[in-house]
């Protein structure tokens, strides 16, 4: 039995005859399992597969290799190529121009599928592009004032928390990228893991997320400016330069002293007064309720500080917050 006869036999027995039209690509392995397919290809069709480490390894582990198949109508030419999911490379393409040909196995290691990630970037170029694309600076200056005025000093704890969470995501995505090293990132990962609909969902969200990020990166958002302005008005004048001190104390870092921010306004740089300042916003008729302030400041404090805050400073902060004295 010639190689191509065995190929055809295998093709019929494995149900590959589901090629819907000529020239269409089809995946050979459907539910029979990739290991079966690679073994058949290895033994019957592609003798050269036996010397390819990726296929052999994948065969052992239950099919890391994906084998594609293409039939050109009329001439009967067939083409198959195997993609090793481990290395992400198309290892071999074979071509049978005629059914009577004996030698069909032609190793073409350079042939690549369209999906394969073209590694045109080195480490440095990829790092530079990623830094420019997902630069943290853009997001930081967009949200810094907003977060500071909305959450107070506790806002800084968002950085390590979000860093840890996003690090987990990055590690998970690293494994996915290593498993499916195809051009298209989230689309290919989700698509290969769960199906085309999943991949399309991820791609659609990413398309709009990135496109709208292009928009938002250019001008400062009016709503942000409004919020910051309103918050600044609400906090009152003297709380603007208190913000830094409160941030430092909020972080619980002892001994760190920040000069007043209004130094360049002509005033003398003063040392800070830590007592007697209330944490409430300046009351201009619409101050925050004191009870809410106390609750937020005291409980949220203990919950979020990872190391013990000295009880004296905690108490004084809470008392200051509760004292509800109008602004000096």
């Amino acid at each position, binding site marked *: 039995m010639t190689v191509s006869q065995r190929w055809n036999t295998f093709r019929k027995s494995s149900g590959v005859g589901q090629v819907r039209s000529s020239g269409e690509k089809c995946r050979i392995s459907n539910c029979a399992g990739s290991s079966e397919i690679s073994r058949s290809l290895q033994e019957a069709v592609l003798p050269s597969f036996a010397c390819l480490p990726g296929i052999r390894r994948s065969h052992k582990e239950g099919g890391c290799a*994906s084998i594609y198949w293409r039939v050109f109508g009329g001439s009967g030419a067939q083409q198959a190529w195997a993609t090793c999911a481990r290395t992400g490379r198309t290892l071999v393409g074979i071509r049978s121009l005629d059914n009577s040909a004996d030698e069909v196995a032609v190793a073409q290691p350079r042939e690549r599928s369209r999906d394969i990630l073209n590694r045109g970037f080195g480490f440095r170029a990829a790092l530079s592009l990623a830094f420019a694309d997902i630069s943290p600076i853009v997001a930081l200056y967009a949200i810094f004032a907003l977060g500071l005025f909305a959450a107070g000093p506790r806002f800084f704890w968002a950085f390590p928390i979000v860093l840890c969470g996003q690090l987990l995501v990055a590690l998970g995505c690293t494994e996915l990228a290593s498993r499916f090293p195809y051009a298209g990132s989230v689309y290919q990962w989700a698509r290969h893991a769960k199906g085309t609909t999943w991949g399309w969902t991820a791609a659609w969200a990413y398309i709009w997320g990135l496109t709208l*990020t292009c928009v938002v990166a250019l001008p400062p958002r009016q709503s942000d400016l409004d919020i910051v302005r309103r918050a600044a008005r609400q906090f009152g004048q003297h709380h603007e330069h208190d913000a830094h001190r409160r941030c430092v104390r909020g972080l619980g870092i002892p001994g760190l002293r920040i000069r007043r921010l209004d130094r360049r306004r002509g005033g003398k740089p003063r040392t800070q007064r830590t007592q007697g300042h209330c944490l409430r916003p300046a009351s201009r008729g619409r101050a925050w309720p004191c009870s809410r302030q106390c609750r937020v400041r005291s409980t949220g404090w203990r919950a979020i500080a990872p190391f013990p805050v000295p009880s004296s400073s905690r108490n004084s902060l809470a008392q200051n917050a509760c004292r509800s004295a109008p602004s000096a």
Partner: protein
Amino acid sequence: MPIRAIGLTAIVAAFFLLFAGSDLYNVLVNFSVMGPYIAFAVPVFAAALTRLTGRWVPGVFSLGRWGTPVTYAAAAWLAFEVVNVLWPRTQPGQPWFVNWSMVISLVSLRAVGVVVYARCRNRITEPVGERL
């Protein structure tokens, strides 16, 4: 170079820039926070599901036995963040559709996406390398 894709992105971005300062712009632009979270949540959830069913085959880079808990933790973190970002906070002085802008933009973009996907789904014929 994907010239057409880059050009289309630039045109669409410039078009939305014309709405700068309006409320519609704020509603749309808020999605820039939401979009990447969803985009990375979907494959991480997919990986977590394949790990749950025990069909995950690691690639070249693998975290070893830490891979599974890290993926679960990443999925949990992303779920938390998506809910957190979607959650409408009431800011004083903002109209309701700015407070609910995440939900609104997500639902509307999802509706458009379903229509587009239904139209182009049959044309996606690229093979799936290894479906888990």
